[in-house]
């Protein structure tokens, strides 16, 4: 499979998984808050395609895509969302707290931008161990309003740490539009004060995201320090859950009219077909993915719930010398 085709496959997988999760939320079968990245799949897919297994990824509340793109097991994620013992976090995490350490997905948590400094720490560990691994922090535009985001950029730049700060600017922080939260649409300029490069990318163009990430990863591995990537995209659904969120105002309808045609999946598909890949071959991906998703749902449904005796376990980790 070419890079383009595997990127398409990953975006299709993320889309299919999240659309199915949305249905199960609506049906009342999934109760844990689920934040969907439908429409934003190109960023997770594009950035993670530029990484190796030992590079680490850190995410937030909207991180199903990051988990899957970094190689996390679909069954374990679905089971986690169902609150099952077989879940990737053993039923303690739900949708918002995912982990796949063997794949380098070190943790996603919903405190806004909370994993940004943690990713800096992973970069610091790479530097101190003289290892080539990079750390990637994924966060939304809202996180750039947090103080620790700016602290983290400065720290990573000062110590020339191999870190990618990937802002998924979907123009919303819960119900608040970017324009209601800052005077200027200038997130990428946050790179400037710390002296790192800032790249503004079309976050709905997966190949552009991939190229930008490759550039930043190459720089990081060469010991030249971190980069900020502002990937501009749009959150199709509401902050949490599957609703389209039209009710919040007329501007949402206008914005959706503008952004739905920029669907990253359709764009890549069109491009691959233009380049001569058979449309039939690409269309054949969907049913295979659908089966994978259904298998994951079946796995989650059939998995046991955590045992009640499990409540008090793992508050502390065992001593590791």
């Amino acid at each position, binding site marked *: 499979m070419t890079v383009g085709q595997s990127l398409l496959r990953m975006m299709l997988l993320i889309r299919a998984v999240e659309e199915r999760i949305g249905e199960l939320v609506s049906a009342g079968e999934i109760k844990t808050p689920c934040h969907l990245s439908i429409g934003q799949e190109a960023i997770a897919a594009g950035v993670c395609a530029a990484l190796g297994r030992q590079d680490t990824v850190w995410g937030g509340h909207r991180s199903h895509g990051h988990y899957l793109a970094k190689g996390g097991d679909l069954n374990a994620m679905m089971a986690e969302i169902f609150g099952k013992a077989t879940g990737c*976090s053993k039923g303690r995490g739900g949708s918002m707290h995912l*982990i796949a350490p063997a794949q380098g997905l*070190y943790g996603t948590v919903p405190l806004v931008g*909370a994993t940004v*400094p943690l990713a*800096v720490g*992973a970069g610091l560990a790479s530097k*101190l161990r003289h290892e080539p691994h990079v750390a990637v922090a994924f966060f939304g535009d809202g996180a750039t309003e947090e103080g620790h985001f700016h602290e983290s950029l400065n720290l990573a730049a*000062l110590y020339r740490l191999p870190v990618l700060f990937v802002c998924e600017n979907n123009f919303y922080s819960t119900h608040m539009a970017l324009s209601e939260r800052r005077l200027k649409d200038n997130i990428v300029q946050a790179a400037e004060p710390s002296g790192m490069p800032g790249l503004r990318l079309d976050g709905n163009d997966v190949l552009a995201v991939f190229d930008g990430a490759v550039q930043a990863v190459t720089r990081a591995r060469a010991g030249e320090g971190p980069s900020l990537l502002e990937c501009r995209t749009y959150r199709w659904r509401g902050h949490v859950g599957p609703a389209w969120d039209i009710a919040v105002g007329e501007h949402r309808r206008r914005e959706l009219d503008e952004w739905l045609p920029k669907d990253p999946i359709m764009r890549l598909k069109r491009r691959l077909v233009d380049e001569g890949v058979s449309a039939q071959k690409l269309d054949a991906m969907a049913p295979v993915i659908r089966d994978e998703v259904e298998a994951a749902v079946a796995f989650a449904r059939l998995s046991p719930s955590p045992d009640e005796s499990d409540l008090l376990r*793992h508050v502390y980790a065992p001593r590791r010398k």
Partner: protein
Amino acid sequence: MHRLTYAQAIREAHAQLLRHDPRVFVCGQGVWNPWYAGTSLQDLDKEFGRERVFDCPVSENATTGAAIGAAIVGMRPIVFHARMDFMLLAADPIVNQAANWSYLFGGQVGVPVVIRSVINRGGEQGAQHSQALQALFAHVPGLKVVMPSTPHDAKGLLIAAVRDGNPVLYLDDRWLYELEGDVPEDLYEVPIGTAALRRSGKDVTVVATSYMAAEAVKAVETLAQRSIDVELIDLRSIKPWDRDLVYSSVGKTGRLVIADAAWMSGGIAADIAAAVAGEIFHALKAPIARVCLPDVPAPTAAALERVYYVGAEDIVAAVEKVLL
């Protein structure tokens, strides 16, 4: 065995940990500067290089978060806060992240980070340079909190904290820095969760934390002269604390005074008092007394500081009260 001050013992623990474990590093504001750390980190950067011992920008949150992130991927950081008050700017990485990580992910990852913070009070520094917030952090599942009061424990608890595999808040008190004591030269641990029986006695149990344990040593001498035989327990570890030793002591003496130089409301002393009253109520011959700070911020004027801070005399008064 050699004689070291409390601050020198902390330094020795750092030096030996840095020498023996390549995963250990030290970061935080002021690690290159004795104005912040006294002699407790002196010249570690010269000995181990500024890559492993590095001073940081004024960014408590990112610095602590970075230490936590490095710990999650297998390093053993010690992050330094010269004053506990400033550490509150790192509340998110400590309370929401480090404390939760093991539980949240079903034990798949640990957070072997030591968050060292100095309680640096008195000297007319006032409300934002003086706080002793051990109870705030002891409240949180997933954190451990230690407070050594002797050079021996200052070294041994730091080593135990680094090797523990969990986020440990190591709180040292600037008022103890010049205290001298015998310290083994090797790399040894004082187990977290064990208190130290400083003196056996039959009349009353005094449980003290940090510098109040040092004050209690003086109080015990005064009380001995008055023929009051005190059993003194230095708690050392605030969370978890040594229930077995406290219960067995109170079971013997039937009287309990708890001395913790932090605010009384919702404090460690309240936790110990509630546990003793709940578990071994029938052993008590008198109400439990607490020697704590009054529930007000630290004042600056020396005249007010004198009445605000507690010490040996307050312990003596409390012991005499529970013996009435």
